[in-house]
């Protein structure tokens, strides 16, 4: 009987899948720009990065290779600290702007290597912490980012923000909306996780 039910459910599921009308693919392509990401998509991407980093944490608990070099200078532990520092910075920036305050600093992104000095300073500031504390910081800050994305008003979500980040010569500030900022933040996390996977596969 159970098998009969499974067969019937399977046939009905196949029919249900075939019965729907699917939107044109052009609509997906047109809406794929990060600036057009919806609030739900941004939150989903943030939650996915938490899962991906949790997966890295789980693998470290077994492999204990946090001292493995990922770049010439950074170990896996340093990369986790780097991701935690950017999650914290991004959350602080959004909250500062939400309070209507301005910034007394800027982070300049060089054409090659981004904000090297800022990145290294943030890693150095976390030297005394364990890699598990860095994972905790990343997770807590990313969770708060997701909560901000959920709770900000529509105007705040859609509006463009001027961040304390600059690039180019002369330096020009970054102006972008919350959705592309969060989508880019998630991409940045995945970029480093991929680099860690590559470093591990080379070993």
């Amino acid at each position, binding site marked *: *009987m*159970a098998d009969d*039910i*499974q067969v*019937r*459910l*399977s*046939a*009905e*599921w196949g*029919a*249900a*899948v*075939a*019965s*729907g*009308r*699917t*939107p*044109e*693919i*052009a*609509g*997906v*392509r047109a*809406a*794929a720009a*990060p600036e*057009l*990401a*919806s*609030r*739900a*998509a941004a*939150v*989903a*991407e943030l*939650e*996915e990065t938490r*899962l991906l980093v949790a997966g890295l944490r789980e693998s470290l608990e077994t492999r204990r290779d946090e001292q493995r070099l990922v770049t010439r200078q950074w170990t896996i532990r340093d990369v986790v600290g780097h991701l935690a520092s950017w999650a914290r910075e991004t959350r602080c920036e959004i909250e500062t702007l939400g309070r209507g305050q301005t910034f007394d600093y800027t982070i300049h992104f060089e054409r090659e290597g981004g904000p090297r000095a800022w990145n290294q300073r943030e890693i150095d500031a976390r030297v005394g912490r364990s890699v598990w504390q860095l994972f905790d910081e990343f997770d807590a800050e990313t969770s708060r980012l*997701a909560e901000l994305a*959920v*709770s900000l008003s529509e105007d705040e979500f859609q509006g463009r923000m001027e961040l304390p980040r600059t690039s180019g010569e002369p330096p020009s500030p970054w102006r972008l909306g919350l959705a592309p900022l969060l*989508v880019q933040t998630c*991409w940045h996390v*995945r*970029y480093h996780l*991929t680099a860690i996977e590559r470093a591990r596969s080379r070993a």
Partner: protein
Amino acid sequence: MSGSSAFSGGSSARTERLPESSVLGAAARGELSPDEAFERLYDEYAPLVRTWLAARIGTAQAEDLFQDVWTIFYRRWREWEHRPDFEGSDARPVLSFLFRTCHLVLQAHQRIVSKRAAPPLDAVDAPAVNGHGAVTAQIQLGQCLDAARRHCTDEEWAVLTAKLSDLPAGDIARTLHITEAAVDHRFRRAIARMRAILERSHG
């Protein structure tokens, strides 16, 4: 678009259906452009994604979330890294990614809705005799499947629809944060529930 007339338009009627592993392999070897491969994957899985979402949340809201899921995958596809194990006949990393993304987008949507006032009227499905009117109107759930939708818990329903879509238990478990044993338990519980209901209804 790649300009290849054989694949243009995204119409499943005009393209040969290939299993996911073949599409990924062809894309990795350069036999399909990234756009062509994306179209193949869209043709293959868009109806399934739409059915997953509609069966969980109703057709009206599923339309927006469908776009969220596919725009997330569209962006991810551009950074997709091929691995040799993706070419095994059972490997379906894209299907697993889409299932996880559906789940995360649904969770994000529910979180956003619960934070806000009632959604606008046009975002709410019309009430229906069996409580799933819009879903059954556009996506035809058979009698057995509709009964399962009404009598299973949300967790059981998520597992059931994933298993009916041939997702590996491990991927379902990782997405739902449960063990593989729990996946099997929920599936068997849903089948047992359906057996009891059908036996009752047939006297």
